[in-house]
């Protein structure tokens, strides 16, 4: 059984495959209010990022991003060595490290550990990896009640909804939906006041923390030479998750490793600024194994589940740089396409936005997500935002290349480009074709005298559905040049 089959087709993050995006795009484009909502939130975050990063790093900002990217790239290029080193040092620190090749195996390991320890109630802090492997429903199916404790994730869990942003999971929900969910599920008095809503959640969850016997978290960084697990959170639920329950399980992808503890500042300085325009997250928790004998609190046992689940497949390709990602969400906030469709779970997977458009097809197969590499204007805003300098547009193009090479692209498209290329390789043919095209376009524009085409056939029709297309003027630049110079090159 794989992640993809245990779900009915209504789960927007684990849809039926192959996933075609058209319906979601239409739905998202139809909800103007949601678009504006998401647009406002992401634009504000993006501006905040630019401001705080410029403020801190001034003209060094780009160089810092490159530097962080270099450290991560080095780690990935030697990941076999660093994973081995991490396993050894984390084990020395007293943690138990398990290796999971797939999502299914990762779920299985966690459930086995939880069952062996007779865990009944799990408190969970926010983790994209656990979303990726769809852990919570598996835990619940095994009789382990699991509570998302990050406020956004908690609300989403109450509403049986799905996160739509890797940092701001409920960017698509407003306070009214929170108010309704709390009234319905927690039986509290209806209020739309965010302060009061937060208070309600706080009170509800505090007692759960005390009762829970299992804490599950992700990790933002793993330190190879010390075996440390680093968690960056703002609410404090991460800290409590690893403080009150007697057992702690960490789910983490192998790409989260960095070589040494002294590398950590580079990433701490970038992560929160890129994600939420804070200089550093409120809580940066560094865990070195479970509670020591003399310590007052903390879990007796700590298990770290290292996840592959397609990461080695990415490592193998020229998309390796994608694994530098520190999940800051900056590329989502910067992306004009995400701003339009992101609120509607249009990316059909756990990872959305530019990062998702690349890694989802890589992890789950291009044939399963043939549209994602194409839903981008390649504007490059993501590349400029990325704190680890991942050339996302180039990676999108490379996926398009792979689709051409493995013939996932429809034949008609391939033929059209072939024909176009044939023309472009022959200057005389190119000039002739340009002339003919210009003639045809001018003829089409004649019907309305404006010099514009307002209804075109074929692909031009998609263009003219919403905007006019210009008719070329009767003289091209080349015509002018030939008159200007009498046909000479110089």
């Amino acid at each position, binding site marked *: 059984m794989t992640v993809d089959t245990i779900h009915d087709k209504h789960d927007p993050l684990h849809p039926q495959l192959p996933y075609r995006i058209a319906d979601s795009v239409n739905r998202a484009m139809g909800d103007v209010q949601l678009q504006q909502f998401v647009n406002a939130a992401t634009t504000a975050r993006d501006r905040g990022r630019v401001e705080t990063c410029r403020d801190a790093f001034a003209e060094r900002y780009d160089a810092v991003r490159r530097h962080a990217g270099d450290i991560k790239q080095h780690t990935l290029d030697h*990941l*076999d060595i660093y994973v081995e080193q991490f396993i050894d040092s984390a084990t020395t620190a007293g943690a138990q490290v398990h290796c999971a*090749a797939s999502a299914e195996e990762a779920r299985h390991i966690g459930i086995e*550990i939880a069952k062996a320890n007779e865990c009944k109630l799990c408190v969970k802090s926010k983790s994209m990896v656990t979303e990726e492997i769809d852990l919570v429903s598996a835990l619940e199916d095994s009789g382990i009640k699991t509570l998302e404790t990050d406020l956004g994730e908690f609300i989403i869990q109450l509403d049986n909804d799905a996160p739509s942003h890797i940092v701001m999971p409920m960017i698509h929900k407003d306070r009214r939906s929170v108010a309704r969910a709390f009234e319905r599920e927690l039986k509290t008095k209806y209020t739309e006041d965010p302060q009061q809503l937060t208070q309600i*959640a706080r009170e509800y969850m505090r007692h759960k923390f005390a009762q829970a016997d299992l804490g599950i978290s992700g990790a933002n960084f793993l330190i190879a030479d010390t075996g440390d697990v680093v968690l960056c959170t703002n609410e404090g639920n991460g*800290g409590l998750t690893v403080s009150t329950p007697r057992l702690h399980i960490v789910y983490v992808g192998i790409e989260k490793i960095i070589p040494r503890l002294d590398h950590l500042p580079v990433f701490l300085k970038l992560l929160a600024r890129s994600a939420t325009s804070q200089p550093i997250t*409120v809580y940066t928790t560094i865990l070195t194994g479970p509670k020591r004998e003399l310590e007052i609190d903390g879990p007796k046992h700590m298990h770290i589940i290292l996840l592959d689940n397609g990461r080695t497949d990415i490592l193998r390709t020229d998309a390796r740089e994608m694994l530098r990602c520190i999940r800051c969400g900056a590329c989502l906030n910067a992306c004009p396409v995400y701003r339009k469709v992101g609120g509607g779970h249009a990316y059909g997977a756990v990872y959305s936005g530019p990062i998702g458009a690349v890694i989802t097809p890589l992890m789950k197969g291009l044939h399963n997500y043939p549209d994602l590499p194409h839903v981008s204007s390649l504007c490059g805003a993501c590349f400029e935002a990325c704190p680890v300098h991942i050339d996302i547009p180039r990676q999108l193009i490379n996926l398009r290349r792979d689709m051409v090479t493995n013939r996932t692209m429809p034949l008609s498209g391939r033929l059209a480009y072939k024909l176009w290329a044939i023309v472009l390789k022959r200057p005389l043919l190119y000039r002739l074709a340009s002339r003919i095209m210009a003639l045809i376009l001018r003829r089409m524009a004649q019907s309305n005298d404006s010099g514009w085409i307002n209804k075109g056939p074929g692909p031009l029709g998609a263009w003219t559905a919403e905007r006019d297309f210009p008719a070329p003027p009767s003289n091209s630049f080349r015509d002018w040049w030939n008159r200007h110079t009498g046909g000479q090159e110089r």
Partner: protein
Amino acid sequence: MTTPTHTSQARHLGTDREVFLAKIRGALGAKKGRTITEPVPDVDESLVRLCQTDEDLPARFADRAQALGMQIHHAKVNELGAQIGNILEKHNCKEAVTSIAHQLLNKQVTEILRDLGTAMIDHKSTSWHDQQFDVDAGITDVDAALAETGSIIISSGAHRSRGSYLAPPLHIALVRTSQILADLIDYFDCKNDWLDEPNQSATVLISGPSKTADIEGILITGVHGPGMVHIIIIDDQSQSE
């Protein structure tokens, strides 16, 4: 695969470690036993350092900590009682947990609380686990503090509980000026030197009160952790003392 018994001591759940590593090597085209031949990139301080060691560190620390939403108080050692008393009174705290590794400071604070008549909760008692969520305030010292960001750094240990600075709604942190470092770089270069106890399991950098902006991006403090963090900066460096 071994089936774990009642404790969680199963070693080999999931994929065998060698198989797992071999897959990574396969993806990289690397051989088992290879070593790193290229230099590991060092942190380029000229790019990344944001606070110089010769800045006025206590001043910058206070400034940044305040910007993060924490409240700053300055105290000489003999004024500590009044400061703590003020804060506890202002927030109507009837009981507090102390979680202080520095022995002298611990003794002092204990006396202060006794004088104030504040009930002291013992985090070493068995009832602490449930009690921690009902305590009004947690008072801790710190391992170190950072001028760069205004963060305080606290490790857990035999005298400091994780819960004491996370569970109560109010956290009072005692920072000595000699503990203030310039940059994150300076701390992580020698984290262990700053630990109050060697071989501990958890260190946290705290940079403000607990925060969330999950509901419509509106900033709310005090969602899970303390909504209020007061820092008392104790000058232990001035010559005049």
